[in-house]
């Protein structure tokens, strides 16, 4: 088996396994070796589950041999370390959960396991999914495979770096304000954040419950379609998961784009946009025009309020979601507490990192009597306005496009001093979460050797259309096949 197979995505990998070109055990072994070689530099994985992976691969090979293989059987992947995995540590990149082993699988983990996929391990992330650079991890920052001096984006930085560095063909991730799309953009990947409610949140450690959504980081839209097919659907254990039928995402990938109406939010192409980013975005839009699409300027009038609203709602929910980490039942517990208050204070002071503590404090403040109306209620009103903007826009257009991020990947440490600068990273992505809509980021070009992402936003539960649009672009371009150069030979 040539190591070149590690350059294959899910679809190709699955085809190779079914054709008998190599076994899942051989493939899994090769990925484990590549992780062993490159993870020390990248820090993309928190936990590698080699033994379990080989056992799952052997089971997959048996299924393949019996002709019982599905479209994902035997294909390796990695899970962001906030999906609970039965018997394997789920740390959320926090000291608080460094010793936490869940006795259950998240629904996402369960479904992908049932589909025959092989879990290679758990990927690094910003602690409790709070961050845009993967620098807020108890296990240290993740490096961008395109340039180890740069961040991979966050919070799903480990998943993105692992897929970009060919340490796994695909990874799960989550997106609360851009945590799939921004790392996808920084690492040259296809990132899909489904509609809120499309994928079950059960067993996914909560950051901001009304915004969190599980999705995928893959090499292509076709791979994203394959994964989403297995992940999506109603889950009786998640009351917010949607009872909306799951279409066949592969069936519509090949639909032509003639007549597609693309909306360009004027706010996303305004003065703030870096000219270096704008050029590849405009070039990508020209590709869509050549495929028969038309471009229309739209307005998302309240987009400038999205970061402010997000940084009230998300921390408010987080402040309550993270109250359970109190040192009483599981997780980190301070040494020799004097009394209950001491237990709480030291456990939480020592167990949480600074960004998590900052958001808990912001959220607690926003919910206090006397501030609640001015912050939380106001933010919810803005959230409604932001959703209304999208609803109105989708009366005129079928998809909204623009840059995923204001810049390409930035240097480690360059934004850690000023949280607000870091928060502004999510200016294009965060409104999509507030509106609950599906969004993607796909590779649209390189600027000074670094990937640039194009964001696609669709109507509620219109993932099939987004995947179709992205796939057609990927048939016409090869940006999504570009890999970081200096990671050693495959």
């Amino acid at each position, binding site marked *: 088996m040539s190591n070149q197979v590690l350059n294959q995505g899910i679809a190709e990998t699955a085809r190779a396994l079914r054709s008998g070109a190599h076994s899942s055990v051989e493939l899994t072994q090769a990925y484990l070796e590549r992780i062993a070689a490159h993870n020390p530099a990248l820090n993309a994985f928190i936990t590698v589950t080699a033994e379990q992976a080989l056992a799952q691969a052997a089971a997959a090979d048996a299924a393949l041999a019996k002709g019982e293989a599905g479209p994902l059987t035997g294909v390796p992947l990695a899970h962001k370390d906030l*999906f609970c995995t039965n018997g394997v540590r789920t740390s959320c990149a926090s000291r608080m959960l460094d010793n936490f082993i869940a006795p259950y699988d998240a629904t996402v983990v369960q479904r992908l396991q049932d589909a025959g996929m092989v879990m290679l391990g758990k990927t690094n992330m910003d602690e409790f999914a709070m961050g845009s650079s993967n620098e807020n991890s108890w296990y240290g920052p993740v490096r961008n495979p395109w340039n180890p001096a740069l961040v991979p984006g966050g919070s799903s930085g480990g998943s993105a770096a692992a897929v970009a560095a060919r340490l796994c063909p695909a990874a799960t991730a989550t997106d609360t304000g851009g945590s799939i799309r921004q790392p996808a953009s920084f690492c040259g990947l296809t990132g899909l954040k489904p509609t809120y409610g499309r994928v079950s949140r059960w067993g996914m450690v909560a950051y901001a*419950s009304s915004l969190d959504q599980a999705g995928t980081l893959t090499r292509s839209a076709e791979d994203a379609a394959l994964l989403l097919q297995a992940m999506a659907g109603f889950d009786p254990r998640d009351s*917010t998961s949607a009872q909306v039928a799951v279409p066949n995402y592969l069936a519509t990938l090949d639909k032509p784009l003639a007549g597609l109406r693309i909306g360009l939010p004027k706010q996303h192409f305004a003065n703030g946009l870096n000219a270096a980013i704008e050029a590849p975005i405009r070039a990508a839009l020209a590709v869509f025009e050549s495929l028969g699409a038309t471009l229309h300027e739209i307005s998302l009038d309240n987009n400038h309020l999205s970061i402010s609203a997000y940084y009230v709602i998300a921390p408010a929910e987080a402040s*309550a979601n993270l109250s359970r980490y*109190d040192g*009483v039942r599981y997780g980190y517990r301070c040494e020799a507490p004097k009394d209950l208050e001491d237990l709480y204070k030291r456990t939480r002071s020592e167990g949480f990192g600074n960004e998590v503590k900052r958001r808990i404090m912001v959220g607690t403040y926003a*919910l*206090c009597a006397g501030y609640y109306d001015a912050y939380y209620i106001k933010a919810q009103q803005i959230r409604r306005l932001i959703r209304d903007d999208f609803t109105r826009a989708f009366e005129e257009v079928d998809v909204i496009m623009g840059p995923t991020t204001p810049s390409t990947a930035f240097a480690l440490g360059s934004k850690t001093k000023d949280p607000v600068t870091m928060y502004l990273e999510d200016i294009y992505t965060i409104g999509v979460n507030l509106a609950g809509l599906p969004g993607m980021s796909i590779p649209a070009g390189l600027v000074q050797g670094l990937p640039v992402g194009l964001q696609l936003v669709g109507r509620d539960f219109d993932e099939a259309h987004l995947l179709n649009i992205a796939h057609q672009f990927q048939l016409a371009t090869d940006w999504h096949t570009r890999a970081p150069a200096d990671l050693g030979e495959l």
Partner: protein
Amino acid sequence: MAWETVIGLEVHVQLATASKLFSGSSTRFGAAPNTQANVYDLALPGTLPVLNAEALRMAVRFGLAIGAEIGRKSVFDRKNYFYPDLPKGFQTSQLAFPTVGRGTLTIALEDGTTRTINITRAHMEEDAGKSLHEEFAHATGIDLNRAGTPLLEIVSEPELRSAKEAVAYLKKLHSLITYLGISDGDMSQGSMRCDANVSVRQVGATEFGTRAEIKNINSFRFVEKAILVEAQRQIDLIEDGGTVKQETRLYDSERNETRSMRSKEVANDYRYFPEPDLLPVVISDAYIEAVRATLPELPDVKAARFQQQYGLSAYDANVLAGDRDTAAYFEAVASANGDAKLSANWVMVDLQAVLNKQELSIAQSPVSAAALSALLLRIKDNTISSKIARTVFEAMVAGEGEADAIIAARGLKQVTDTGAIEKIIDTVLANNPAQVEQYRAGQDKVFTYFVGQVMKESRGKANPAQVNDILKAKLAGG
């Protein structure tokens, strides 16, 4: 100075669901600690709540029973505070949009009048676990079996004006929830817990005084005592020139006093906000009507029917209808012997006295409804007198068998033979010439003396009505 007590009650009723409000764990009482807490109850990361449909149905049943508006879109909120027996660090409750809105409860007072008390709202929430301080040295044990048990918190307007009214309200509430089958209402096991908001003001005042909240009172008797002692404390305080502080107090039943809770135990800002893990609960007309169709005959309706159908007094009808088992027992007795008044008296007086003495519920009665009815039939057909019936009843309670068997075994059958009764009367009159003289001289009261003597002579078995008639005739005839 005349003072008036103003009371509002917040009653937590534990709903009798098999599983918890948001998880599938059992709610059974008395299991070994922490054996009924699953991953959600333990607040493990990533776990999510799923609303128990049965708990919702029970809340709606209650709402319909008090004529309340049902919240068509009720919303769960997180009430945030840290405590070791609150695993999530927040209690899921309902703040702005409760499932049950305004309704009313009519209470019967001892003077025979009724009052209608407004209920502000009733909201669903989950219970906390238990902290066990005594069993552990230098540590606190946490039992999460109760954590997540569904509660319905029923909040009254501050319209109750005495401790007795408060108890009447609670008893009516208890009657209603047991009728509805939504709770066992067992206060000793915490299935029904009461917080009382108490304030005092001068009679005639329109403004409320400052209130104190007495937390977690766990019996009807303690509710009455706690309110009385707290109201007196406030009156004394004001009359001594002090002012009442708005605070939370605990009732100490051993000392019969209320005392302030340490301020630490009182969280002051719960930072409520809508629970994002649950969607608003949308309740349709069809759902409400389906629930309404399953409501049993409720106490007030039943009491009215008892008055109308059986000719009972309002008081008797209310007492009998107030408890579902008692009402069923009464109806079984009355329908078997056809004499509702007699049946009502026996159930309310004689049977109740036995049950009280033996601390039994009517469901555990040593005398079945059929057995009691058989006894009452013997009064009606003049086999025995009411007085003898009490003797027979005592024997039935003691387990000596059915009424007829006891009457036969003890030879208690009533004497209705006119000749036999005349003979006894003749003997009595012959033995008491002086009293005969007195009666004939106009002292009517002596008549009862003769009756007594005749009954004594017959060892209680002579038919009292026949004794009356024959005695009257004989005394008149001379």
